[in-house]
């Protein structure tokens, strides 16, 4: 290891992180205990009011609960889709695998806003889905069709499925299939092999995927905003509103702190679960 005689070159990125990552994080914590001044600025007066408001009102609790529920459902559905898909992809020939990965990857590279827009187009009141439903005589209120919570769920899954898919794919590639062979030889049915042998074997991939879906999903703003309509408010919308519309920054900061605490707890739990009982593979 060489010691640089000149100014340490690593100080530049460190200062950047300090100024624009660590510092802002501390500021939010600090801000959550302050008060909103009359015209939307900040009054430097220490108080617990923000947290009290947050925990006492039923409205905010239901928003957090709904977001938590939606994130959990998204994660579970992504799991149920990603495991078979990753299994299918792992079993393809080299060429087919490259092609399928490309086909799976391209929608992943789409801009989030564009992707959600395309989902909206599909279900728009003058769009193809409504058109075909009418043809078959199924009458659904077209405006309801284009903005509802099921659609938010669909948007979430379309966006975050690749984040679940790729870690699990990697885990499948690394998986030692001889163990599955042994299980098969000993007479286990395919579904038993899946549950008892394969799934525990890819647990690290599963936990990585779960984290990469749940964390962004819980704080998502764009998807519920564009697809959810007025009635579907999630944590992301709530916080964004505090900062950009209601101009109650301290209150928004308090919500953000609660969000982070919940996420940290979840990450910790999943991390523990993911590493429990996994034998070190040489």
């Amino acid at each position, binding site marked *: 290891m060489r*010691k640089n005689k000149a100014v340490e070159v690593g100080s530049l990125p460190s200062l950047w*992180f300090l100024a*624009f990552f660590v510092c802002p994080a501390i500021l939010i914590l600090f801000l959550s205990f302050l008060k909103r001044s009359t015209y939307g600025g900040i009054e430097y007066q220490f108080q617990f009011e923000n947290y009290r408001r947050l925990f006492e009102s039923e409205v905010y609790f239901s928003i957090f609960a709904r977001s938590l529920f939606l994130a959990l459902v998204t994660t579970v559905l992504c799991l149920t889709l990603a495991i078979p898909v990753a299994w299918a992809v792992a079993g393809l020939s080299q060429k087919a695998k490259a092609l399928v990965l490309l086909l799976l*990857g391209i929608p992943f590279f789409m801009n989030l806003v564009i992707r959600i827009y395309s989902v*909206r*187009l599909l279900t728009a009141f003058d769009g193809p889905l409504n058109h075909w439903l009418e043809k078959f005589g199924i009458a659904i209120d077209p405006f309801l069709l284009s903005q509802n919570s099921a659609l938010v769920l669909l948007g979430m899954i379309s966006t975050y499925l690749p984040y679940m898919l790729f870690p699990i794919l990697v885990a499948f590639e690394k998986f030692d299939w001889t163990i599955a062979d042994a299980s098969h030889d000993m007479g286990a049915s395919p579904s038993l092999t899946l549950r008892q042998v394969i799934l525990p074997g890819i647990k690290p991939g599963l936990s990585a995927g779960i984290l990469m879906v749940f964390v962004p999903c819980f704080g998502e703003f764009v998807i519920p905003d564009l697809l959810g309509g007025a009635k579907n408010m999630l944590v992301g919308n709530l916080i964004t509103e505090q900062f950009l519309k209601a101009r109650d*920054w301290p209150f928004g900061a308090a919500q953000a702190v609660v969000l982070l605490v919940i996420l940290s707890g979840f*990450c910790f739990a999943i991390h523990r679960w993911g590493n429990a009982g996994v034998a070190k593979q040489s």
Partner: protein
Amino acid sequence: MLQSNRKPPVWARAFLIFVLLMLWLPIAVMFFNSLDFQSGELLQFYQQVFNDEALLQALQISLHIALSSAAVSTVLGLSGAYAIHRTGFAWKKFLLVNSYLAMLIPELVFALALLTLFGMIHFPLGPTTVLVAHVSFSLSFSIFVLSSRLQQLDIFIEEAAADLGANSRLIFFKVILPQIYPSLFVSLLLCFLLSFDDFLITYFVNGVGTDTLPIKLFTSMRIGHSPKLSALSMLLTAGLMFLAIAIFMYRNIRDFAHSDRK
């Protein structure tokens, strides 16, 4: 290819087809929406996109910020990666931990943290704040890409250079740098894409009149949908798609070229 009793079950393949459909159906709808089958000109909406002044300006702003952000991120990322893997820098752990954390926290929190910072020091929102924000969240990725490349390098070559009398600066510029050019390119491209595509953080910290393209897209989409918007979306998707394929192919060519050098 897996043996026959290892082959994934049929229903797994059915899931694959279902997922592919689910991902591509909206794109197909958007594609057909962007074409004009009713009047004579098929590509009318694409032409409207190219003639729209406001859109072109937003594109220009997006490009400026993305290019600057990529450059600054990569330079800082290189400093960081080098400091972590080639020096006895005292704050190595701080850098590492921060770069991981910055990748893990939700974008929303990042966005409001930066907005809070700028608000509290009364720094005016505009292209500068957007640039700072973009560099901040792409720095981690740059460090990650360059770190992994630096770790792959053969350190004996650098030590040989040191034995022959080269100082750190000479070693960096003459030995390390030439070996990492492809990774520098990947870092630039990745940071460019991250910045160009970003919506949420930009939405929080941009001022009036510095709308990037994703912001313009969002505000237009909130109002409603139109074939012109679909045309713009198709153009952006196709453009970014080609860039993504370029990364993919460049990496494969580079790995192929490097494999016979060892």
